């Protein structure tokens, strides 16, 4: 009953096409950099009309030791067809902020302020029965660990069918047809047989595919993928990312990808938002943030990626630990770990919280750092180390 099906081998064959960026994909990736420059000042680095707009989002919850501000004044936006990657360490608030978009926080214990708009409709403060209609329909979530995120006691087919029938008043047969279609679409071989199986009879990659099928069954406009590949092994990771990329092309949905893996960011993201201690510290197009990062924390993240050319050197971790959200350091939250803080005149790094400002005086690429010569420091000192 539990023997892994031989069809699982197909796992390695599906979706490899997206390995190299297809030419039409590049064309679809929003306006060129030149047009972007013209639309300075818009919230969204691409300049397109956003579907999801988050403005000044703050999420607080009480704990035994005091009130934690897990997210502090976060703003971003994502248009349809684009992928925003939110990057940061554990506890930086990346998951918490996207849970807020889904309205998944415990209402009694969590205080959410600011604004979250989906296609113009406000989500913050919406009553539960209204939120229910949005969840899983306009916005779907793909969770980190498909092993624990799928119900172990219901068949995969049952769970996908259920997701469809919550938002569509259709018969079981119609829903089943739709579920089989989705299983096929996400590259699960032999959907009819797989439909009747339980999650424990699926391999890890297949389970995540089933999870994606369940998330996309209602054709959501926005997909939040919370570290969708973290629990998977590396070869399967690439397949799942390709699958997400391909499905985005097909469905044209906006994706918010939460990850700490900059390799995933490079492969998937159009825009990147780097979070540290509940705040956005750098935000821009993937090209800007990855090729011209302007914040020491982002540099640290980039330096801690292993590269093949530097295979024999030690990895450069960011020294120290992320601060406790209960007692953030004064000034810039990153200052205790920042190797460049002496270069800022006076004690500004420890006394004054830097604003999120355009890196070149104007434009959509913003960062939160007091350093004046960010560009030259990066080019002269950091870039050579990245190899």
């Amino acid at each position, binding site marked *: *009953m*539990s023997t892994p099906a031989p069809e699982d081998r197909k796992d390695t064959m599906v979706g490899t096409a997206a390995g190299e960026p297809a030419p039409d994909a590049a064309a679809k990736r929003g306006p060129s950099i030149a047009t972007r420059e013209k639309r300075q000042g818009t919230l969204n680095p691409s300049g397109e009309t956003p579907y999801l707009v988050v403005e000044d989002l703050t999420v607080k919850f009480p704990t035994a030791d005091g009130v934690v501000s897990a997210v502090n004044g976060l703003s971003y936006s994502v248009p349809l067809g684009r992928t925003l990657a939110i990057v940061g360490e554990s506890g930086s608030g990346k998951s918490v902020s996207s849970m807020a978009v*889904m309205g*998944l926080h415990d209402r009694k214990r969590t205080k959410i302020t600011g604004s979250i708009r989906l296609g113009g409709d406000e989500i913050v403060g919406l009553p*539960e029965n209204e939120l*229910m*209609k*949005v*969840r*899983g*329909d306009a916005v*779907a*979530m793909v*969770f980190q*660990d498909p092993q*624990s*995120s*799928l*119900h*172990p*006691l*219901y068949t995969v087919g049952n769970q996908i069918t*259920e*997701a469809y029938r*919550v*938002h569509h008043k259709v018969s079981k047969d119609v829903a089943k047809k739709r579920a089989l279609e989705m299983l096929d679409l996400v590259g699960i071989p032999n959907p009819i047989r797989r439909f009747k199986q*339980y999650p*424990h009879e699926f391999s890890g990659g297949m389970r995540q595919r089933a*999870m994606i099928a*369940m998330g996309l069954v209602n054709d959501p406009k926005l997909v939040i993928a919370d570290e969708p590949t973290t629990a998977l092994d590396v070869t399967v990771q690439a397949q799942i990312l390709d699958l997400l990329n391909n499905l985005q092309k097909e469905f044209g949905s906006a994706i918010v990808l939460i990850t700490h893996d900059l390799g995933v960011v490079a492969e998937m993201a159009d825009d990147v938002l780097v979070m540290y201690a509940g705040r956005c510290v750098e935000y821009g197009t993937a090209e800007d943030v990855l090729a011209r990062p302007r914040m020491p924390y982002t540099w640290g993240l980039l330096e801690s990626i292993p590269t093949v050319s530097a295979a024999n050197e030690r990895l450069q971790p960011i020294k120290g630990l992320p601060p406790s959200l209960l007692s953030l350091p004064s000034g810039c939250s990153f200052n205790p770990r920042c190797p460049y803080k002496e270069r800022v005149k006076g004690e500004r790094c420890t006394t004054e919280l830097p604003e999120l400002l355009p890196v070149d005086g104007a434009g959509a690429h913003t960062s939160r750092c007091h350093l004046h010569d960010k560009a030259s420091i990066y080019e002269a000192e950091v870039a050579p180390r990245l190899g």
Partner: protein
Amino acid sequence: MLYFVARRLVSALSVVLVTLIATFALFFVAPTDPAAAICGERNCTMERYNEIKANLHLDRPKVQQFAEYTAGIFVGRTFETSGVKQECTVPCLGFSFKSDRPVTEMLKTRLPVTVSLVAGYAVLVLTIGVFVGSMAAKRRGTLGDRALMSSTLIMSSVPYYIVALMISLYLTILYPILPRGSYTPISENPGKWFAGLITPWLVIGIYNCTQYARYSRGSMVETLSEDYIRTARAKGLSDRSVTYKHALRSGLIPVITIFGLDIAASLSGAIFTERIFDLPGLGNLVLQSLETYDLPVIMGTVLIASVVLVAMNFLVDVMYSLIDPRVRLS
């Protein structure tokens, strides 16, 4: 699935067989002589004593006696006392030393009483107990939750027979708010059957409901924090379907484990209830036969109790595998 059922069935039967051997051994290690017991203290001549011994085949080898006893269960036996033949029909468990009635017949009248009692108990704890526990889990930390949890503590610190006795004395006799316990077969008059059992059910049920509420609260609190519950909510399911469809199914598994063990205890716990509410069940029969060393009756009740127990455990196992598809594999 079929293999699972078959395997459980075999192990169930072996448990019954072991019980059978053990209870039969009781016959011989018991500090009483059955023949002497039947013969009585007065007017017992050696002649009569030997005759009884011969009639009961007590003079034969023990293995043969066991074989005859076991065979009697499946094919019936014939006893001969003073020239009078007594037919003991299948399933034969012998005759009571005291009343001279077939044990099987006695059990047949007693068993439905205890089964009715325990069945009502099971329904109460598995519905009200589990429901209250789930509600408490959902409203964790609120006043209602705390009140429930402390009331279960108070309840479980008072022995059951005190509670039962108090309710019986005050609420059915002194202030007859509740009907007094009595037993009418359900086939005869379902209304009377229900009325006579409602008080014992409420007492045994509510007393134990608090325990079940605790178990299911604990298990539901854990289940509600599972990732797949978050997934269910992210799908847009209502709070009710999340709790009672997704969470309860997993949350029930530990409760059913405890239920399986508890049913054994509640069978013997029925002794108190039957005694206090004057119900002619198995528990009362055991007490009477223990007082009079009525060995065939004791053996019969032990045997029937073991069969019921094994059957209940089997049922729990089947329930398990119905709830959790992963059980069938192991």
